[in-house]
């Protein structure tokens, strides 16, 4: 705006314009008209809002509707082996997941993994863990691990963050294994104990056939049942250990695939960086005194290349140790 008169007119117009207003009575009349029209607006029913999620988690939500909120609330404190534990893991947590924004899904599933670990710790502290509890726990854990891995695959987080997340999964599995006494070292011991028990039972059974003394046979029988129970327990443990191992392998596969992706990206990054340096050097050499430039640039380029190589080596060492 270069015309001074136009500028001045705009200012005057603005001042006059802003003083134009409705009188108090006009405002009151208008207000009562408006508020008379707006009060009876129908609010959408809360169930209507739910219908969207009904499509997202149908089974879970229908169960939720049938069983009702009090049950689902009570289920929150349940532990593996409890009747309500499945309500907690299959319904409550799934319904909650449907409300978690996409970008926070991965974090949510990780918090569930941590929850699983603390659940099994509580059970271990209380004493012996029953087979039902183990089965429940293993199912829930398997579900959570695949959820986290799936969420990580579609995650848009930085690679370092995702790497850390993958490690969280493996760590959660390791802790659970430890708590259950299923870790590698004790595992081998357990296996040998289990083997010796089985062979003991076999010999006892042979002996049992030939024994005539009933009382003695009864004692042997009791002992045998106890031993059998123990063996079954050991076998269950073995089964669980195998499940854990396969689960851990799934998590480790996902992790190593991710590490591989990262290292490929790193190599590409370094390669393009080296290209840039060479290009820069060429430009400088061609643009200035050739002999002087080549000696100074040779050393500077070498130093930078050496730094890059060192960086690359460190990166791969770190990545290896992560694996």
């Amino acid at each position, binding site marked *: *705006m*270069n*015309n001074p*008169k*136009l500028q001045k*007119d*705009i200012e*005057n*117009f*603005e001042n*006059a*314009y*802003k*003083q*134009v*207003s*409705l*009188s108090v009575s*006009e*405002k009151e009349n*208008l*207000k009562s*008209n*408006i*508020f008379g*029209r*707006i009060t009876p*607006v129908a*609010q*959408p029913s809360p169930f209507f809002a739910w219908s969207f999620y009904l499509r997202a988690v149908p089974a879970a939500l229908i169960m939720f509707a049938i069983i009702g909120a009090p049950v689902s609330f009570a289920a929150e404190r349940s532990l593996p082996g409890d009747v309500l534990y499945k309500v907690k893991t299959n319904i409550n947590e799934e319904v909650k997941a449907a409300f978690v924004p996409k970008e926070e899904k991965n974090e949510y599933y990780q918090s569930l993994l941590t929850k699983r670990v603390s659940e099994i710790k509580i059970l271990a502290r209380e004493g012996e863990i029953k087979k039902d509890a183990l089965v429940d726990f293993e199912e829930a854990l398997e579900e959570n691990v695949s959820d986290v891995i799936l969420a990580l695959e579609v995650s848009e987080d930085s690679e370092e963050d995702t790497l850390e997340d993958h490690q969280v999964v493996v760590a959660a599995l390791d802790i659970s294994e430890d708590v259950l006494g299923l870790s590698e070292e004790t595992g081998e011991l357990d296996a040998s104990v289990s083997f010796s028990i089985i062979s003991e039972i076999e010999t006892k059974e042979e002996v049992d056939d030939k024994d005539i003394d009933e009382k003695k046979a009864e004692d042997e029988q009791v002992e045998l049942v106890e031993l059998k129970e123990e063996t079954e327990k050991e076998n269950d443990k073995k089964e669980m250990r195998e499940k854990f191992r396969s689960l851990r392998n799934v998590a480790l596969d996902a992790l190593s695939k991710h590490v591989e992706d990262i290292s490929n990206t790193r190599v590409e990054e370094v390669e393009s960086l080296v290209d840039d340096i060479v290009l820069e050097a060429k430009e400088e050499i061609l643009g200035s005194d050739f002999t002087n430039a080549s000696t100074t640039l040779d050393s500077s380029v070498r130093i930078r290349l050496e730094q890059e190589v060192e960086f690359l080596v460190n990166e791969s060492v770190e990545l290896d140790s992560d694996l």
Partner: protein
Amino acid sequence: MEMLYDAYVDDIFRYLMFRIRDKEKALDLTQEVFVRMWQSYLGKGKDVEFPKALLYRIAHNLLVNSYERDVHHSSLDTLSEAGFDIADNSQDISKTIIASDLNQMLGLIEKKDSDLILLRHIEGFSVKEIADIHGVSENVISVRLHRALAQLEDLYNKKEKNE
């Protein structure tokens, strides 16, 4: 909603009044703007980040519809005949506005262009806010605004030359 009404009723009325130039119609449309704000947004519990811009947008849409219905609207110089006697103290103000060169010149350029100049330079909206109100991109508003202002300035220069 009541706070919104108290804060912006004058702005919305003024906006409509200066464009439709009919006090009764402007009052009706002002009422409609607030009713629609409630029915389409606040009453449904929608979160409105910039209520002022949204009110203007509703007002703008209502105006466009009203223009389509009533093609033969009057120009700014007939404001007084159309009952531009808003508050008691507004008589002198309205005369000042009607008599101003700017008002005459704005009557000579295209309606949508004069609207942009009023929004930007009289009502003080940013280009982005005007783009929101008109429902077009900022670029479109910038270009149109620049062209409208150049046209207005040209009219001023011509008038000065003649004098």
